[in-house]
């Protein structure tokens, strides 16, 4: 527990400069709902904490030409209060709103949930299913990365020294698109997902024209499962398609046994959650 420095820059460049200069001893503070717990437990002892909540570019929810852009420091509560975003991306929105309690919603951020790189992060499978892309700023400038490529393992990301996620882009979806996220937890609230499933699909009348299916808490990172999507495409989500979806989802799982659930349980329930999410997504697509 050395002396920790706290900085709250109001520009992205300053933030990047601070992080780049701090040779790995720095941590980004967004909502702090993970960082402060790690600090208190002594798990981490950063020399510098960079609070990014004063950076305007990271705070907004805006509809742009390519789609909806969410600042990385946008909180769950802010998403929950944004009617237009919720109707455009109900699945992503409900996933973000599932992160923690009301109190945690007041702090926890979209970027934080992503960059904490927990395999069980609720917002991530929903964003992967939605085809979200992360906009990253760093010493070498800006770059973009598909959300599914950002986490590389538990607590590990593809971010390089000094890089931070600035915002997330939810691409414009074709008409007839709907998304949904579902998770299995032992209680009704306050739990980490044992399994999470995000589904985004586009219906062309009664046939599924396109789909993306992502799973959480069943591998070292959230998984995009193309085989599960293929089970849906071309079908009207009949029982056979659902069975194929469940089978593909379960087949993609490579979970661990832990205090929250067994391998077998995660594999079985991944299929169940995927099917339930798909039904909700279709319903939304056809509204």
């Amino acid at each position: 527990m050395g002396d920790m420095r706290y900085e709250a820059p109001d520009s992205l460049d300053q933030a990047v400069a601070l992080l780049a200069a701090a040779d790995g001893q720095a941590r980004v503070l967004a909502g702090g709902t993970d960082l402060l717990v790690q600090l208190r437990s002594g798990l981490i002892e950063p020399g510098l904490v960079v609070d990014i909540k004063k950076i305007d570019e990271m705070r907004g929810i805006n509809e742009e030409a390519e789609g909806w852009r969410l600042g990385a420091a946008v909180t769950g509560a802010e998403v929950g209060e944004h009617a237009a975003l919720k109707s455009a991306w109900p699945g992503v929105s409900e996933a973000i709103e599932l992160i923690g309690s009301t109190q945690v919603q007041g702090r926890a951020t979209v970027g934080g949930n992503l960059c904490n790189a927990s395999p069980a992060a609720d917002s991530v499978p929903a964003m992967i299913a939605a085809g979200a892309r992360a906009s990253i700023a760093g010493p070498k400038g800006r770059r973009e990365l598909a959300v599914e490529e950002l986490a590389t393992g538990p607590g590990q990301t593809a971010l390089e020294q000094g890089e931070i996620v600035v915002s997330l882009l939810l691409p414009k979806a074709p008409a007839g698109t709907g998304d949904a996220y579902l998770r299995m937890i032992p209680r009704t609230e306050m739990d980490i997902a044992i399994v999470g499933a995000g589904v985004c699909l586009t219906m062309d009348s009664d046939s599924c024209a396109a789909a993306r299916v992502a799973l959480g808490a069943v591998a070292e990172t959230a998984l995009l499962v193309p085989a599960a999507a293929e089970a849906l495409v071309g079908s009207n989500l009949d029982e056979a398609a659902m069975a194929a979806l469940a089978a593909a989802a379960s087949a993609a799982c490579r979970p661990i046994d832990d205090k929250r659930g067994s391998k077998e349980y995660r594999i079985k329930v991944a299929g169940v959650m995927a099917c339930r999410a798909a039904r909700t997504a279709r319903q939304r697509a056809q509204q």
Partner: protein
Amino acid sequence: MNDAAHGEYKWIGTRPPRPDGVDKVTGRAKFGADTALPNMLVGAVLRSPHAHAKIKSIDISKAEALPGVKAVVSRDDFQDMPSEMVPAGEMMVNYRDMVRNVMAREKVLYDGHAVAAVAATSASVARRALKLIEVDYEVLPHVIDVMAAMKPDAPLLHDDIFTEGVEPVPDKASNVAKRIEIGFGDMAAGFEAAAEVIEREFDTQPVHQGYIEPHACLADVSEDGQAELFCSTQGQYLVRAHCARLLGMDVSRLRVTASEIGGGFGGKTVVYIEPVALALSRKACRPVKLVMSRDEVFRASGPTSGAHVRIKLGAAKDGTITAAEAELFYQAGAFPGSSVQPAAMCAFAPYALEAVNVVGWDVVSNRPKISAYRAPGAPISVYAVECVLDEMAARLGLDPVDFRLKNAAKEGTKAAYGPKFGPIGMIESLEAAKAHAHYQAPLGPNQGRGVASGFWFNIGGETCVSLNLNEDGTLNLLVGTPDIGGSRASMAMMAAEELGVDMADIQTMIGDTGSLGFNFLSAGSRTTFSTGMATVEAARTVIEELRRRAAKIWEIDVDAVVWEQGSAKPAGSNAGEFEPLSIAELAKQAGATGGPIAGHAEINAQGAGPSLGTQIVDVEVDPETGGITVLRHTVIQDAGKAIHPAYVEGQYQGGAAQCIGWALNEEYVYGEDGRLQNPGFLDYRIPVASDLPMIDTVIIEVPNPSHPYGVRGVGETPIIPGIAAVANAVSGALGIRLSQIPMSPPRVLKAIEEAG
């Protein structure tokens, strides 16, 4: 003056706001961690990362050298104690074990076992100091599971445990501390006479009391050895007894004040950090505040036992139980002393039996020493028994309530633990269950309904109160039992009822150990019963004195003075014509009529009445995920007499919620390394608001003849039947029975798949 026979009460049975209420809703109330003293230091405890290890050495020199560190203590700062059971304030305690649980000595015996502690000028300095303490461990093999710990080749926690209660006493040390047995009747004949015999085994995991306020205390030892301790506890006098003993102090020189207590449920009846804070303060000669983190609460303070239970039940065609047998294997934690004894006594207590036998085993393993949790031990044995009763009812084609009614204990029944029952409310609770709308309500698909009953003895014990009449006619009632659920209100109500004054004229306060004689814990559902009994006695003494004073003033015989509605009145016309003297007028004249007026009572309350109850639970199971939703929960229980019905309901509802947590999700999860994996509220899953339905209550009142108002304790019985009621509802919904709790979704889904 009222008595139990007199039904018309002004205060008893009403729902006035509690006297400490405003402090509690404004944040003013002072809990264990809410006070500070000038020159105060902050303490922190270093805890074992190992489940079982020999402590080869502890080097505190670097920590002591850190600027801002004022004291460091370890095993060397606590004198060793002989291994013997000695009485300590109504309890039998082995201080050899207690001193080792407070601060590890030769070995650490569980993950989280205290090894050393520091007091420093700030929390961050204290945390840094802990990192500078060097402990050299020799890691030993550990054992977590109770059945594994009983194996002959299991790692030994203590080399001097020779199973008590078996003759001849074994000559080989083991982890089996004790064998206990209760029962009577001819078991063989009983099972012989049975038309149906069911034998089942069950497993339960340790659960924590889960009080929201972590253990917290503030110790201040002066240079001359006089000490004050402010702490969150269910019994300031027991804290004093234990700390004085462990620190070699005169009891008179340690003054313990109970803070407002943020939940206890039995878990705040022993000491953990209190002696450590005193030792640090004594060394630093400065006040030391020591507060557990949530992680420390889970790892190092008492959960209740996990257990393996075997039940064998025989019944005749007509539903009469012919024989009831149980064997209980209870985890004690790192030191002997599980709750297997009361568990054995309660297991079959609600029923009238001809032949019953219960054997219990008290087994140590590398877990935190268990401490009492609401009806210690009983919820576990009763869970197993009531599940088998349910299966038996189904097999005999009987309604589960009718089956229980057929065998229900009543006044005069020889209890399974020996003596005959006085008046009890078992039959009343079952009949109320049967008549309740809940029991008749229709069920949907994947839904099931379960019922179960339970019994707890309740206790009395040493109690001491003081009731002082002030010069303006108001009164202060001083009691020595911490208020864990509204007892200050109940005491004021009983005193007001006796005196015939306004409840608002009586302020109830919790005294420190210097202000009253010894009081046993607020535990065992004894407070409203025992402290209430003492309060009534004190009030009646005050009334006697008030009549004497009025007699003096009127110059008539005291027998000619009666006390009615808060005033002294002449007994009748021939006593003379006098205007009534109110309590305020008599208080004003107290000095002139003989001095201050006060009543006090020092009693060892006897005659606690058992409380029996029945609970009905509806659940819905998600067959694809194993998720369980509790749809409806009704608690029916005998209160004897509900002094403050709202707080009786609160006990019923809180107990029911704890049953639901215990049945569905709460458990200690240990890794291969013997370390606790879920020491926090994120993964130790107590029920949250959205998990629960409203919890309906029915208060039955079968008066306890030993209490002036008929009071029975109500705090513990509510946590007994609910677990089995949930389990029975789940098996009703699934058509299969799980043999372990918690019935977490993975376990439920596994059971569904295994059943095919």
